[in-house]
């Protein structure tokens, strides 16, 4: 189990209390910390508290177009993983409105909620626009669940298109879900998401055309001389292919802690911090833009200056704690 480590002394007392309860394995404290992971005031502290987490969970992202069957597949995987006696947590992302900031988070509908099962945990997250289908606090949420000792962490992205590849940096294994009749052979030759997925799953195997789609994908993705990529045909309705998929998943290498992945995660985080500061310091941004324009700078110069200035503004929580 987890070791109870006392939080550093400059951590806000309430967060410290929560951290202790979380470290004892209290689920309500996990729930609240997942909320705090989305709050600017607490995130820097949480990164610090979680920095010593050693990798233990197997983190799998399920991505694909809207309606491809991501939530349904995760619902089935939860049952299979539990049957095998392992624990599983799910982070399910749905889009946040670019207009109002609101969201309708409806992924849980397809997933089982078993009241007394301490071996599962499902959390819905809103993903802002322009973030490649990912909630902004996703890496912290993964770390919180990992330290809570879940064996599997399944991440469901927002329904995505062809090139939302950032999720790969956050997980051990990336599964791309494709539904039948969603393209001809040329689709499968294209660069992007298909290229970086570790495993391709064709859903709705009970529908006509599913086997053909799977066969086309197998042929195109496994051309002689190219790295092989498994293609699995499943049907959640019939329950077929799911055990095979779980087996394939278990055989995938865990690559979340390679230096390359670490770099990708840090790039995402740096972009996030910059985007937040850009919004938070709208006045400063406006002033710099006007100054740059009157000095005759081009957009490149103005943007570079913005990065320099915003990078030196302290984070919100650093300003709050002495």
């Amino acid at each position, binding site marked *: 189990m987890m070791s109870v480590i006392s939080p550093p002394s400059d951590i806000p007392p309430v967060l410290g209390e929560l951290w202790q309860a979380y470290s004892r394995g209290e689920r309500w404290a996990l*729930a609240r910390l997942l909320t705090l992971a989305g709050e600017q005031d607490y995130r820097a502290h949480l990164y610090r508290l979680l920095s010593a987490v050693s990798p233990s969970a197997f983190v799998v992202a399920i991505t694909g177009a809207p309606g491809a069957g991501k939530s349904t597949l995760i619902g089935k995987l939860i049952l299979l993983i539990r049957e095998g006696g392992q624990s599983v947590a799910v982070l399910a992302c749905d889009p946040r409105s670019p207009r*109002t900031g609101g969201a*309708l988070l409806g992924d*849980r509908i397809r997933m089982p909620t078993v009241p007394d099962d301490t071996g599962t*945990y499902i959390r819905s997250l809103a993903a802002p626009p322009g973030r490649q289908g990912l909630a902004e606090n996703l890496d912290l949420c993964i770390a919180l669940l990992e330290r809570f000792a879940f064996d599997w962490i399944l991440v469901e992205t927002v329904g995505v298109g062809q090139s939302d590849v950032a999720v790969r940096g956050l997980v051990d294994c990336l599964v791309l879900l494709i539904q039948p009749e969603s393209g001809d052979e040329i689709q499968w030759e294209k660069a992007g998401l298909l290229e970086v997925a570790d495993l391709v799953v064709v859903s709705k195997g009970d529908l006509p055309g599913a086997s053909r789609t799977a066969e086309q994908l197998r042929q195109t993705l496994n051309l002689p001389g190219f790295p092989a990529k498994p293609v699995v045909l499943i049907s959640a309705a019939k329950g077929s292919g799911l055990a095979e998929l779980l087996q394939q998943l278990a055989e995938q290498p865990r690559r979340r802690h390679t230096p390359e992945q670490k770099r990708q995660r840090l790039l995402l985080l740096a972009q996030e911090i910059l985007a937040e500061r850009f919004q938070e310091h709208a006045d400063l941004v406006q002033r710099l833009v006007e100054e740059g324009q009157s000095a005759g700078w081009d957009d490149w110069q103005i943007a570079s200056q913005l990065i320099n200035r915003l990078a030196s503004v302290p984070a919100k929580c650093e300003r709050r704690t002495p």
Partner: protein
Amino acid sequence: MSLVAMNVPLPGKLKSQTRRIVLAKVGLDGHDRGIKVVARALRDAGFEVIYPGLWLSPESVVRVVAEEDAGWLGISILSGAHLVLVPRVLELLRQQGLSHVRVVVGGTIPEEDVPALLACGVAKVFGPGSALADIVQYFQSECDDERN
């Protein structure tokens, strides 16, 4: 576990928590048009609405509220079982240290049943004829009050 949960205060006023709303259908009741319309309106008003689907038991609903760390639970009932199911949900929330979650009930609730629901801890009841704008306004003003 529940006692500890109640003793730990919310750190400050968390906008993200008070603006998370679980909307749920409890029991054997398949009439979900109303709750979907309310979900859409609250989404458009900037709330994060979690909709876990039909036919949930009170135990499952409370589990969802706990996992999602929602500030609100909206229960829609058109089956006539509100006087049985709603008190059960409230009792489970209390048992699990979730008394801070405010519960709103909507659906075909007769006028004469409203006092009983309010007495067992429901914050507000929206019966037949409730205007969508009033429902949204209610959540907006409660959340605004809280932050002031």
